[in-house]
């Protein structure tokens, strides 16, 4: 519980609340769009570089490979059962898009979790960042495959997107590319490099995270409010109940799977938490962007609202401390 309060009273989370509150009182507070975009690039750049430097200092061992493989497999498996759970209750395109969304990860949730660990002085490994980056894309591919196989038949509009194209997309995706690239550079330049840019990537990290989460709070709350007026896109009440239920339960299920993997691999506390967070989090940038291209039949008012406006805050505010407590209790 104390852990829980500790996390809730960290500035970054409080600024997320503040952003949401701004929307609640209909304040005109807004972060300029290009600034928000830049802050998210900064976070990917910083976490990537930090991870790379950490990697350059750590000795390479099998558990790294095991973790990477396990998590990538997880990110490919999650969409499958998610899809089959939801296909009865939702339009098939939406089911596929949600599946992809939850198989993938939220970089910011991960970043916040690393900040949470740093503040508590719990160590975590640099390769977890690679893990995060590598988990962004596989789910996209799986989601599309599922839709092409089960969905196309009932006459969906538009031509299916080629897999080759999809795979290209997923490596060249801007955020994945920036994380992996920064990580590579951090790994190459190691501590010398870190000395040069530490003031930017380390010292400013939590402060800029606050400002970014302030924006996230605004955007997420805004989205929940607009949801009422989603026009023809607005999901039915029935669909809505399914959405909320899924957005609340999927993270818990996936986090549990993550916990299982962590205990199987006997990961240390910090990595275990990050594994759970990666499993539990859902993408709200890379995957939705890919879905709009590859699966425009799917309704973003469904999958994006779920990941951005429900699952993201859930993991951020309750998930991280609860997963941490679970690890302390079980592992």
């Amino acid at each position, binding site marked *: 519980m104390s852990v829980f309060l500790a996390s809730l009273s960290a500035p970054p989370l409080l600024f997320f609340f503040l952003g949401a509150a701004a929307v609640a009182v209909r304040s005109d507070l807004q972060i300029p769009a290009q600034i928000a975009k830049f802050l998210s690039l900064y976070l990917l750049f910083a976490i990537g570089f930090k991870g790379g430097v950490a990697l350059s200092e750590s000795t390479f061992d099998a558990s790294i490979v095991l973790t990477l493989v396990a998590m990538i497999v997880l990110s490919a498996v999650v969409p499958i059962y998610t899809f089959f759970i939801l296909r009865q209750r939702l339009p098939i395109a939406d089911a596929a898009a949600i599946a992809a969304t939850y198989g993938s990860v939220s970089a910011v949730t991960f970043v916040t979790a690393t900040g949470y660990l740093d503040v508590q002085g719990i160590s975590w490994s640099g390769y977890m960042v690679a893990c995060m980056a590598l988990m962004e894309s596989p789910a996209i591919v799986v989601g599309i495959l599922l839709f092409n196989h089960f969905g196309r038949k009932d006459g969906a509009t538009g031509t299916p997107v080629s897999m080759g194209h999809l795979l290209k997309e997923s490596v060249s995706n801007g955020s994945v590319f920036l994380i992996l690239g920064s990580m590579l550079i951090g790994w190459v330049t190691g501590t010398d490099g870190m000395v040069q840019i530490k003031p930017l990537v380390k010292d400013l990290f939590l402060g800029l995270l606050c400002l970014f989460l302030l924006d996230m709070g605004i955007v997420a709350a805004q989205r929940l409010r607009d949801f009422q007026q989603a026009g023809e896109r607005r999901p039915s009440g029935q669909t809505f109940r399914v959405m909320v239920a899924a957005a609340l339960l999927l993270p818990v299920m996936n986090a549990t799977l993550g916990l299982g993997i962590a205990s199987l691999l006997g990961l240390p506390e910090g990595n275990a938490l990050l594994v759970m967070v990666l499993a539990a989090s859902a993408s709200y940038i890379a995957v*939705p962007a890919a879905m*709009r291209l590859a699966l425009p039949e799917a309704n*973003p008012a469904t999958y994006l609202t779920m990941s951005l406006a429900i699952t993201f805050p859930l993991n951020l505010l309750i998930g991280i401390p609860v997963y941490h407590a679970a690890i302390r209790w079980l592992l």
Partner: protein
Amino acid sequence: MKACKRIEIVIEKSMVPKLTALVKQLGLDGYTLVPDVRGSGDRGMRRADELSGESSNCLIIIACDDQAKVEALLEGVRPLLVRAGGVCLVSDAHWLRH
């Protein structure tokens, strides 16, 4: 001054590459693109505030003096609008030739 059609398309950011590819493929003279415009329509508010770009529109203006190409363009645009929403307006204009 030469009579031409002024085609104005508001479409989701994610569809723009498809659209510009189409413009190129049809051999049109060019286009002008105003990025990150906001709006509201059948699919609700679009605040251009999503990092995924999902809520951003682009405004594309195309001047074309070849009726056949105009037709072809509109044919190509329709499916995009069906898939991703948006509007396409066509009006008459005169093009100052230089």
